[in-house]
C-alpha cells in the first residue's frame, strides 16, 4: 500500500481543525471512504468483479427486454433448438426461450440474495453485539440460540415450510434466519474486545445506556466487518436459494429461479448442453464476481487482516 491511512486521516482532521468550519466527523467520513475506494481500485480483480456484477445485474433486469421472447412464451416452431439469432441461448423442450428464462431466473435469485444478505447481516450484528456487550445471561441465552440454530435442521424446516405456504417472503425470511449464526459469533468476539476499550468504558461511566453504546460505538467500529460479511452473504444466500430450488423446495412454480432451471436441465445436460450451461454459467459467474468484490472490499477496508474470514 502506498498511503498510510492513519497519517492521511490525521492530516485531514488537522486541517479541518484549523479552518474550523466543518465538524470533525463530516470531513473524516468522505476521506476514509476515498482511501477505501482508492485501495479498492488498486485491486484489479475486485474491479473486474464489480464490473461483472454490474453487467450481470443489468443483463438480468434490462437485457431481458432486449429479446422479443418472454419467459412464459412457447415458440412451437422451435423446440429444443440450439442457440441461434432468434433464440440467443436456444430453447427447451416446450419451446421456451432459454435466454429469457435465464434472465428471469437470475432476477429472482439476485433479489433473494440481496434481501437475505441484508437481513442475515443485520441479525448477526444485533445478536452478536448484544451478546458480547451485555454478557452474562443475555450472552448465554443468545449464544445458546445460535448453537441451537446451527444444529437444527434448517434445510428441513425450509424444505417443509416453503412448498407448503408458497410464499416468497416467508422463503426469504426463512433463508435469512439460517445463515447469520457464524457471523454473530464473530461479531460477539469482536464486541468482547471493544467492550474494554477506553472510549467505551468512558461512555459507560458517563452513564450512557448499553443500547446507545452499541449503536454509537460498537457497531460503527465493526462496519468494515459487517460490509464484508454482507457481501459474502449475498453469494451464500444465492447458493442456498438455488440449492433449495434445485430440489423443488425453494422458489415455487410458476416462478423460476436459476436453481429450478438447472434442475430442469439436469437430465438433458449431456444431450442439450445449452439448457444447462447458460443458467449454470450465469450463476457461477455471478457468485465468482460477488466473491471477488468481497475479497477486494476486505483488502480495502481491513488491510491488516489476511484471513479468509
Amino acid at each position, binding site marked *: 500500500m502506498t498511503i498510510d491511512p492513519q497519517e492521511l486521516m490525521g492530516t485531514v482532521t488537522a486541517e479541518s481543525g484549523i479552518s474550523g468550519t466543518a465538524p470533525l466527523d463530516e470531513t473524516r467520513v468522505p476521506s476514509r471512504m476515498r482511501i477505501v475506494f482508492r485501495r479498492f481500485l488498486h485491486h484489479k480483480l475486485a474491479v473486474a468483479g464489480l464490473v461483472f456484477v454490474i453487467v450481470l445485474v443489468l443483463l438480468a433486469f434490462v437485457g431481458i427486454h432486449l429479446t422479443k421472447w418472454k419467459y412464459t412464451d412457447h415458440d412451437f416452431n422451435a423446440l429444443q433448438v440450439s442457440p441461434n439469432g432468434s433464440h440467443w441461448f436456444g430453447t427447451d423442450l416446450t419451446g421456451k426461450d432459454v435466454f429469457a428464462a435465464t434472465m428471469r431466473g437470475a432476477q429472482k435469485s439476485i433479489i433473494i440474495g440481496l434481501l437475505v444478505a441484508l437481513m442475515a447481516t443485520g441479525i448477526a450484528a444485533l445478536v452478536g453485539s448484544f451478546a458480547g456487550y451485555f454478557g452474562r445471561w443475555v450472552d448465554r441465552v443468545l449464544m445458546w440460540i445460535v448453537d441451537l440454530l*446451527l444444529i*437444527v435442521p434448517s434445510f*428441513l424446516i425450509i424444505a417443509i415450510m416453503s412448498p407448503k405456504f408458497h410464499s416468497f417472503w416467508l422463503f426469504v425470511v426463512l433463508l435469512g434466519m439460517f445463515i447469520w449464526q457464524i457471523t454473530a459469533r464473530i461479531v460477539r468476539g469482536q464486541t468482547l474486545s471493544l467492550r474494554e476499550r477506553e472510549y467505551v468504558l468512558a461512555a459507560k461511566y458517563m452513564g450512557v445506556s448499553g443500547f446507545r453504546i452499541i449503536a454509537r460505538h460498537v457497531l460503527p467500529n465493526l462496519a468494515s466487518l459487517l460490509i464484508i460479511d454482507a457481501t459474502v452473504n449475498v453469494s451464500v444466500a444465492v447458493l442456498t436459494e438455488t440449492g433449495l430450488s434445485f*430440489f423443488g423446495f425453494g422458489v415455487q412454480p410458476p416462478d423460476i429461479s436459476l436453481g429450478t432451471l438447472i434442475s430442469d436441465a439436469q437430465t438433458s445436460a449431456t444431450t442439450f448442453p445449452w439448457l444447462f450451461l447458460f443458467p*449454470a454459467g450465469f*450463476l457461477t459467474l455471478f457468485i465468482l464476481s460477488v*466473491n471477488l468484490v468481497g475479497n477486494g472490499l476486505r483488502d480495502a477496508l481491513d488491510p491488516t487482516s489476511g484471513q479468509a474470514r
Partner: protein
Amino acid sequence: MGKYLARRLLNYLVLVFIATSMAYLLAALTLNPRANYEGRNPPIPKASIDRTLSAFNINNETPILTRYGHWLNGVVHGDFGRDWDGGSVNGNLGRKMWVSGQLLLIGTVLGGLVGIAAGAYAAVKQYRIPDNLLSTGAFVLLAMPVFVLAILLQVIAAKLNVNVFHHRVFEYSGQYNPALSGGFFSHIGDRLNHLIFPTLTLLLAGASYLMLYQRNAMLDVLGSDYVRTARAKGLRRTTALRRHALRTALIPSVTLFTYAFATIFVGATFTEIIYGWHGMGEWFVTSIQSSDTNAVAAITMVVAILVLFASMLQDVVVGILDPRVRVG
C-alpha cells in the same frame, strides 16, 4: 480437558435431543402421510386408512403429543418406527448410511487432505505459478454450486467416453452395474468406477474451500518469528515448515472443517441425487416429498449426531494441536 469435553458433550446431547424433537414435531404437524393413501383407485375406505396409519404411528388424527410420546419411547429403545408404507426405518437407515458413508468418508477425508496440502503448498509458493493456478482454480470452484459441479463433471465424463475413449470407460450413474457378470474383482472394479466421479465432486467442492483458508492461515504464520527461529536453530526448511508453520496454521482449518461438515452433507445430497446413489441425502429429499414423518426425524437425528461427533472431534484435535487449550 476431560471435564471440559464432558460438559461440551452434555451440551451437544441436549442440542441433539431438541433438534430431533423439533424435527419430529414439525414433520408430524405439517407433513400429511394420509395423502399417500387417499385418491387411489379403487378408493380405500377411511377406516382402513386410519387403521393403517395408526399402526405406523403416523395418523394425523391421533393427538400430536401421543404420537410424539410413542415415537420417543421407540427411539429410546432403538426403534425409529415405520415408513409411510410400513417398511422399517431402521432397516432403511442401516442400508442407506452405508451407501452415503462410502461417499462421505472418502470424499471428506480426501477433500480435507487435498485442501490442506494444496493450501500449504500454495502459501509456500506464494505468487508463483503453482500458487496462481491453485488459487484461481479454488476460487472458481468455490463460486460453483455443488449441483453445477456435479452435473458438469457428469457431462465431462460422458464427453470423455464418447469422444476420447469411444466406449464407456467412466460410469457416472448409479452405484453399480446390476447387469454385470463376472467374478469378485470385476464387481469391485465396477463399484470403484462408479465411485470416481461422485467422490471427485465432493473432493473438489470440499478442498477448494479449505485450500483458500489454509493458504491464508499458512501465509500468516510463514512470516512469524518462531518459524524464522526454527530455521535459524538449524532445522531443515521442510521440517521447520511442517513442524512449526503447518501445525499452527492447521488450527483454524480444523475449526472450519467442523462447520463445513453439515455443508458437506448437503453437498452429498446433491451428489447422490445427480449420480443416482440411493443414500441418506436422496432419502431425505424423497421422504420429505412423500410425507414420511418417521424417516425425516430419523435422518435429522443421524445428521445431528454426526455434527455433534464432528464438533467433539474438533475439540479434541484442537486440543492436541494447541497446547494452550489443554492448560486452560
